């Protein structure tokens, strides 16, 4: 299982999706939505807020674990380039670790998924790891 590719998704980034995201997190920063403002910054245009990377996730793989409940334990993101409207982000997810720990109410299985995101020019945009706890 470790090293196995478990998901792949191509996401076209629309300006409206970034705006909707900024509104949902209640972050009025004009860098995420005001083109005229953003043009005058070093970025030269709108960029997505740091946690927008969550939008580019692949479907959660079927882990087929003998446990009922899932919780989100940890996220880790390495950033290389900002995500911009018009980008086409290609995201590839693989399992990088699976381990078990004893919890208060029985076994807990930790699964670490790593997703690598590249843009339409083939440049690395970000890499993120999510740790999912099944118990």
């Amino acid at each position, binding site marked *: 299982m470790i090293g196995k590719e478990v998901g792949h998704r191509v996401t076209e980034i629309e300006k409206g999706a970034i705006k*909707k995201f900024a509104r*949902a*997190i209640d972050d009025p*920063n004009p860098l995420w939505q005001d083109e005229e403002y953003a043009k005058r910054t070093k970025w030269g245009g709108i960029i997505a*807020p740091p*946690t927008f990377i969550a939008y580019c996730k692949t479907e959660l793989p079927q882990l087929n674990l003998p446990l009922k409940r899932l*919780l989100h334990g940890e*996220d*880790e993101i390495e950033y290389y380039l900002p995500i911009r409207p018009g980008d086409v982000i290609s995201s590839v997810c693989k399992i990088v670790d699976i381990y078990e720990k004893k919890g208060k109410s029985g076994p807990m299985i930790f699964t670490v998924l790593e997703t690598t995101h590249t843009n339409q020019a083939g440049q690395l945009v970000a890499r993120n790891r999510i740790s999912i706890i099944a118990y």
Partner: protein
Amino acid sequence: MVKQLYYEDVEIGIEIPSQTRVTTTRQLVMYAGAEDDYYEGHYDHLFATQMGMKGVFNHGWLIAAFLAKIVTDWKGDEGSFKYFRIQYRAPTFPGEPIICKGKVVDKYLKDGEHLIECEVWAEDEKGNRNTTGKVVLSLPSRSDRRDG
């Protein structure tokens, strides 16, 4: 709009201005749509209580967004995120204050970039930290500044 922060302005130990957020179930539904995450624990009360929760709970990524916002509001437009780690230690719920805080724990030069490391966390009104994290930022330096 936001005052620009420079590497030279930052000292180890300084605090990032805190922000207190309170989510509503409406915000969780908006967030579910915006992030494209339809996990039932965030909007289906029965599902959440069957998980052993007292009710629907906030998305971990939403708390991460609140923590990122205290940093982006503070750093100004020019700095950029290099790294962000968030650990969810306890669930948080709509209607309960989420106090987002942070402080600078290190600063250094690496590969020609001026980097600062911040510890960030969200706590409840009793000071219990339910979410903790780390951010590495690249900041502009006054020595790189070009006039005109």
